[in-house]
């Protein structure tokens, strides 16, 4: 039966669960029968792809239509039990605009599932009528960082629904700002799922760290560079204006795909700027206050320092919000962001006072205020959420993710030959 499954369509934010319970049962029972018919018409090179369901992560890209055509054709031939069209949420439920984005995802899924159904109906292959089409929105209940999170969400969904194969749209990137992440395909290769990139023609070959070029980004970057140029020059002098326009044109042509990872939007972008301006004096005051405390400790030999490494899981989106928070933490004396591993920030603190201030999470709330508005800024402190850990010293609650972390075993000069760096494995993912 080649029909859409409305309950699993992610109409409610908790679509993962819906798909698990609703569609999952159907798919599970259908898989056995499909396996038998699939063995008979085995033509594909992928010998193990006959039985289970296929997952296709969906984003509106230029190659989505041909990817769907390919998936529908190969699923019909292999006798796959179901095609799961999933959208991995780039928003988090409850954030401002999450409703809009969920609705947009919904529309994409609706269109794609219509395509798939139509392709299956047109297909001559005998298995086509048995392929079920399921849609779902995944991961809307948390911020997803990096390829690893996407893979985790996909793998959980695959397991719940008896899927064993993922077909990727060659243009697919989960969100606009995964620019420096390792490709999803590579991360998926560590799972039992078999991965295939749909062999479709790409209109252009893009480099990986580029994002989509849009008029909005171009205009925003053009305006920004022109304004900056004229600030440095003389806005009333015609020569500066002409060279400024030329420079801004070059800059925005070359860089609009690289430097902005989401489209500027009214009223979101201006509101963020206004709230950022409100945040600046607050940050300055925090810096000044903390600086005086730290200056006192540095200048007075009687006051000891008690540095420790700490971990704090923060609830801000990846990209610019995370960078703002990490930089604010570093700017505030006494705390230094050492690493950002997905949403875990590793923060070195110089004094217990600074560490406690960090765990109170006022900077996190302010960052949320700047990017998501006042309502989103109300959340429990990291300490209340139990999202903090001290990694060193007497109060340590967690081990330092460095091989030689147990303290005393370090050589006098701090060199450890056998340091198997635990961070190597994910070194690429967390930029």
């Amino acid at each position, binding site marked *: 039966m080649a029909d859409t499954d409305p309950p699993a369509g992610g109409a409610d934010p908790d679509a993962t669960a819906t798909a698990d319970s609703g569609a999952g049962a159907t798919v599970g029972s259908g898989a056995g029968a499909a396996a038998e018919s699939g063995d008979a018409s085995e033509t594909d090179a992928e010998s193990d792809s006959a039985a289970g369901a296929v997952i296709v992560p969906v984003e509106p890209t230029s190659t989505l239509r041909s990817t769907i055509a390919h998936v529908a054709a190969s699923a019909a031939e292999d006798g796959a039990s179901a095609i799961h069209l999933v959208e991995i949420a780039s928003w988090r439920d409850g954030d401002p605009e999450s409703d809009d984005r969920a609705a947009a995802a919904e529309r994409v899924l609706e269109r794609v599932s219509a395509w798939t159904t139509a392709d299956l109906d047109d297909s001559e292959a005998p298995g086509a009528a048995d392929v079920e089409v399921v849609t779902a929105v995944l991961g809307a209940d948390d911020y997803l960082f990096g390829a690893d999170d996407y893979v985790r969400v996909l793998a959980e969904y695959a397991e719940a629904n008896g899927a064993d194969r993922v077909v990727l749209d060659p243009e697919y990137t989960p969100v606009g700002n995964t620019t420096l992440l390792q490709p999803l395909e590579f991360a998926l290769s560590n799972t039992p799922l078999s991965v295939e990139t749909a062999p479709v023609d790409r209109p252009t070959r893009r480099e990986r760290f580029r994002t989509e070029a849009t008029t909005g980004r171009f205009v925003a970057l053009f305006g920004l560079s022109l304004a900056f140029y004229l600030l*440095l020059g003389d806005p009333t002098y015609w020569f500066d204006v002409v060279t400024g326009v030329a420079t801004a044109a070059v800059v925005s042509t070359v860089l609009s795909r690289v430097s902005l990872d989401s489209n500027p939007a009214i009223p979101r972008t201006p509101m963020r700027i206004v709230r950022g301006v409100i945040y600046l004096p607050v940050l300055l005051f925090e810096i000044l206050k903390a600086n005086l405390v730290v200056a006192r400790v*540095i*200048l007075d030999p009687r006051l000891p320092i008690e*540095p420790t490494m700490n971990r704090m899981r923060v609830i801000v989106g990846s990209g610019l919000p995370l960078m703002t928070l990490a930089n604010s933490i570093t*700017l505030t004396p006494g705390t*230094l962001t*050492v690493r950002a591993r997905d949403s875990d920030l590793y923060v070195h603190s110089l004094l217990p006072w600074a560490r406690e201030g960090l765990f109170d999470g006022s900077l996190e709330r302010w960052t949320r205020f700047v990017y998501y508005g006042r309502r989103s800024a109300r959340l429990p402190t990291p300490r209340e959420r139990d999202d903090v850990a001290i990694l060193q010293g007497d109060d340590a609650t967690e081990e330092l993710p460095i091989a030689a972390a147990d303290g005393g075993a*370090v050589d006098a000069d*701090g060199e450890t030959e056998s340091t198997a760096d635990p*961070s190597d494995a994910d070194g690429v993912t967390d930029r």
Partner: protein
Amino acid sequence: MTAATLEAARVWLVVALTLLGLFFSFVSMVGVLRLPDVYSRAHTASQADTLGAGFGLAAVALTVGLAGAGFKSVLLLFFIFVTNPTAAHAIARAAFEEGIVPWIEGDDRR
């Protein structure tokens, strides 16, 4: 308020800002010499410096007036506020990835 008192206030403000800048730069220097390891030095090198350079540039802006060069020094201030923590983070991150364990109390390495 006459122009003369305004001018005097500006001069004293410039002096005060310069002294504050000097003070925080001095703290930064003492910190780099005194603190035990790369992480804690990265703290003080970047942070006290942010205020040191910040007050210094504010003094410059006030001296030359808000037009032209003064405006540029305000832009420089923003630049420092963005790049300074980023540089400190890069240093600390590099150290962390090298597997350097942060100094804690009781550690006899200096």
